[in-house]
């Protein structure tokens, strides 16, 4: 199950909130399929940024539960996995802030 998720993640260039794309649209750098209007990216609770950060909490909780369950007998691996998850969350938060600043500049 987990392997299928990982393999599937290699097929999609864009993360789901940024939209899906086909191979022939990869070179279109002018837009992100999921963000047709940059002005609405950071638009309070209606913005995509808010939805991504809210979704990240849910996904983060699920992943933490999975890590605890799968690696319960390997404390070192569990700690490493949790660190990686924390780093990924930090990266996404910083990426969202970067996008907000860049869209507004």
């Amino acid at each position: 199950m987990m392997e299928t998720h990982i393999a599937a993640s290699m097929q999609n260039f864009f993360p789901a909130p940024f939209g899906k794309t086909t191979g022939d649209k990869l070179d279109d750098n002018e837009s992100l399929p999921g963000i047709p209007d940059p002005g609405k990216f950071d638009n309070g609770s209606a913005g995509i940024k808010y939805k991504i950060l809210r979704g990240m909490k849910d996904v983060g909780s699920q992943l933490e539960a999975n890590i605890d369950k799968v690696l319960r007998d390997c404390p070192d691996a569990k700690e490493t996995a949790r660190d990686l998850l924390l780093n990924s969350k930090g990266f996404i938060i910083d990426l969202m802030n970067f996008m907000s600043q860049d869209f507004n500049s």
Partner: protein
Amino acid sequence: MTCWSIHQILDDLQGAWMTGRDAGDGQDMDHMTATYIWATAKTHEVMEDYLKFQFFEHPAIAAVLACHLAATAVLPDDNISAKFTQLETKLTKLSSKVDGIESKAHACARCHDNADGTEPKAHNQTHFQDNIAPSSPILRSSKNRGRG
């Protein structure tokens, strides 16, 4: 510009993550697990790089900015030169038009002077409106008002 940057970031992440595509089909679990861990580590290395440079100062983003500027920048000299050429052409056309109207006005005045020496002012104005500048909207409206 932001979209270009995001494309670049996702491209870099995808490049690192794709190192795990040779993980196999689950026959050799150790190899598959090791490949995924390797791909994860590579991806986190890329993320770490972007965080270290706060995105804006990352060399890849600087390259994107340079590409974006090269693709969208308009050289000021070229622009000004083009505008001057456009204005000169317009000015030449207008000068020709004014010259034509002036010539017609002179010809009309000479024609009436030769005919009877003097002429009524009203007649002269009507003649100008009908023959020299019939397409002028101001004169056309004044002519219509006068006739109406």
